[in-house]
């Protein structure tokens, strides 16, 4: 259900930025003439309305002017739905990945009711490809916007991606598909075999061509008509290329839905600026010393005496490696961002513009704080080798090495707690004073000594 005004309000790009909504009286009168019974309704049933408008817009019996007006009403609806999708995308990813709804709109909101040129806008393309018996116009528009190549190119640059139908099919192994169809969807044996044959034929053609044509690592494009013919030829039943395309898209939809359902339980590697992960770290219980850990505790007491020295050594070594791995420009950004964070006390969001980056996620990717800290932690352990040589057991028993590592991790975690909290703060909160942990102080000392801060 939608308010009927969606069918006569046209959304377009505002030349001064953002968008504008424009009531089209000719669409409003036409719509109200077509659906006189709905005049008093606050919301109209989209399914019925869209079906009738589509029929009107396509019927040769209807005068041309009315055909156009029916299509205009649908294009109004599509323009508003495009806006909704972009608004949601920006709300979900925009702040962290550095874009706004206004950045997205130009890629997909390019329809214009006044023009009658050969240019086919995204809105028109959505309307032309829409089949009312397969989907509703809201879902179809959302789907086409999400799959828009230019929009996806932009989002990918911002670190947000949508896997394409074709990559989903490439990724799917027949064994996994068979199990899914049999155990989750409870399909009949002939139906399972038919779908498996379809996937196998698709793989044989599409994957092969992708490798042959140097498309690897690039966004997957829909199969060409020629590829669809080849896929159809490999199937036992007689089927048109167009029908093959539909079946492949339906299969990709099924797999995509399954993928979304699985997401909840899928392993997710937490990043440092993930609030949830930060909360988990804050909630870590302080380890109670059992008998088995006394040896470790004694070790840690000795170890703490050497802590600062080891920390400094490890920082020098790991920092050098990280700097050497990068181009001079990116190494400069990296060390300057570390300086801003640890020595000047700025939050990630505030650092981005100071090092010519657009978004906080880029700072996260540049600094990789969790990984940097882990590398330093690991490096400390390897530096301690002479010191713990008499405790060779630590190095020959995976379990004990793990315990030692956790022990050091706990110590380090306490020391870098400031950094962790700071990193998790989203937005542009400026603390304005240097971080006080030993980790931060040692890192700042290194940055100062090497003239990088």
């Amino acid at each position, binding site marked *: 259900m939608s308010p009927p005004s969606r069918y006569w309000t046209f959304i377009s790009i505002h030349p001064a930025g953002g968008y504008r909504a424009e009531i089209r009286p000719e669409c409003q009168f036409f719509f109200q003439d077509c659906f006189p019974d709905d005049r008093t309704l606050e919301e109209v049933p989209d399914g019925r309305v869209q079906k009738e408008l589509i029929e009107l817009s396509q019927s040769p019996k209807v005068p041309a002017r009315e055909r156009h007006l029916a299509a205009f009403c649908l294009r109004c609806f599509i323009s508003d739905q495009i806006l909704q999708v972009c608004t*949601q995308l920006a709300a*979900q990813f925009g702040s*962290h*990945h550095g874009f706004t709804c206004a950045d997205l709109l130009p890629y997909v909101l390019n329809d214009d009711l006044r023009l009658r040129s050969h240019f086919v806008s995204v809105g028109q393309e959505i309307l032309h490809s829409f089949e009312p*018996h*397969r989907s509703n116009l809201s*879902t179809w528009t959302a*789907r086409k916007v*999400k799959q828009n190549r230019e929009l996806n190119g932009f*989002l*990918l*640059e911002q*670190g*947000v*991606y949508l896997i*394409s139908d074709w*990559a989903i099919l*490439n990724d*799917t*192994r027949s064994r996994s*598909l068979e199990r899914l169809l049999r155990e989750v969807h409870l399909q009949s044996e002939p139906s399972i075999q038919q779908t498996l044959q379809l996937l196998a034929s698709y793989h044989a053609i599409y*994957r092969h061509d992708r*490798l042959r044509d*140097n498309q*690897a*690592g690039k*966004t997957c494009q829909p199969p060409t008509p020629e590829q669809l013919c080849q896929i159809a030829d490999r199937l036992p039943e007689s089927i048109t290329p167009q029908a093959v395309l539909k079946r492949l898209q*339906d299969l990709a*939809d*099924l797999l*995509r*839905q*399954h*993928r*979304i359902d*699985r*997401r909840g339980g*899928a*392993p997710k*590697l937490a*990043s440092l600026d993930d609030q949830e992960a930060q909360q988990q770290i804050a909630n870590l219980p302080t380890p109670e010393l059992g008998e088995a850990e006394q040896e470790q505790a004694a070790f840690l007491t000795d170890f703490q005496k050497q802590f600062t020295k080891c920390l400094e050594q490890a920082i020098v070594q*790991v920092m050098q*490696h990280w700097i*050497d*791995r*990068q*181009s001079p*420009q990116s190494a400069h950004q990296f060390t300057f961002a570390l300086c801003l964070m640890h020595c000047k006390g700025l939050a990630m969001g505030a650092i981005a513009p100071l090092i010519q980056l657009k978004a906080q996620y880029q700072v*996260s990717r540049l600094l*990789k704080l*969790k*990984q940097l800290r*882990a590398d330093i932690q*690991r490096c400390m*352990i*390897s530096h301690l080798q002479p010191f713990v040589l008499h405790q060779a057991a630590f*190095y*020959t028993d995976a379990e004990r*090495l*793990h315990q030692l590592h956790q022990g050091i991790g706990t110590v380090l975690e306490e020391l870098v707690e400031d950094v962790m909290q700071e990193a998790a703060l989203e937005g542009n909160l400026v603390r304005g004073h240097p971080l006080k942990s030993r980790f931060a102080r040692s890192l700042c000392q290194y940055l100062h000594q090497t003239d990088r801060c």
Partner: protein
Amino acid sequence: MKTSPYPISTSILADFGTLQPETVALSPGIIQRSVQASRQTEAQGNGWGNYLTLLALAGFRQWLAERACDLSVNDRCGLLISPNRVGEGICTIEVQGNPLGPFKVGVLAIEGWLEDTIELPWEVIEQPDYAAQFYVLVLVQEEQGWVTVHSFLSADRLRQTIQLSSGICPISLEQFEPDPEQFLLYLQCLNPATVPLPVVRRSQTTLSGYTVYPLSTLCATIEESSLLHQGRQSLINTAHWLRDELDQVGRDLAWVLLPTLTPAMPSPMLSSVEELEAIVTELSRTGTPIPPQARGAYQDFQWADLWLRLYAMVWPLPIASEIPEWSLLLILGTPSGGAFPKGVRLQVSDPAQVLLERTLRPDHPDTYLYARVSGIWEETFVVTIAVENGATLTLPPFAFQME
């Protein structure tokens, strides 16, 4: 009314993903390498699976290089074990750098959301020739060229859970430990003797249902073919670059054509374009001007334990005489843009003689070497790269043949 046979998602943004800090973005050059290597295995029918496994290996190698300065992948004796029909492919390699000795590691590609189990032949767990000490799962997002080290499992833990003594063993993904940091710690600090490899070889050592490729033959092919490419047939005709295409030799050698400088490009290319732009700007400032119509391409290659990237830029010279001329600029660096390896020399020759040779000046550390030559259109130039121990790598000649 007919309805779609499958429900369509109503939560419209649920299938968007984001780039995580720990994800490795593979360069187009490295992706091309994996394509090239997998092509040689296509006859057995698992080209795609092998391609993903090789991407996983490339990602693992890059991850290790980024994260642990003293650890590296040695694939000289490595194998790609590829299923002929079903099951997982695996690359077995050595990770070296631990002071107590190397670890043998099996690298597997997973796609990550549909599978609950992987299937490995028993031999990959129990036969000395094929077994590893750690098995690591690498999440491959082929479409984006992104790779993430996902989880690992030690062979002793794996052996505790499997009952079979032959055939294909299903292994639940839940058994793998989802902590790559822990895996790095083991590789760097654990005594390799702690995870013993099987020593007793069963009488039957062939892997039925699988094809085993030595990685040295798959991955070296590019270099070998470079050396073998001689004569007119195997020129890299850089005149094609100005028409926005690579010739067959360029494609075979996995050259990556870069857009004209001043682009807005998707992310994987951006870094290489930016890098080249920065170098070009610097060269222009120091007296080597490069005209805007110049086109560039690059090739990444691994050779003699080094990862190198060679950029080449070409452009026709303004017509000063009857005979048209062209210019070739070569820039040798590393794929990461990091410190340039010591002792590496860049040499450019014409068919008659060495024209110039560049090496890093000890007092002037830099991140790349560059060389520029010019000649008439018929002239070709040969690039040779030499390392400290005297080994040399010669690329097919660069030519500029307008048709």
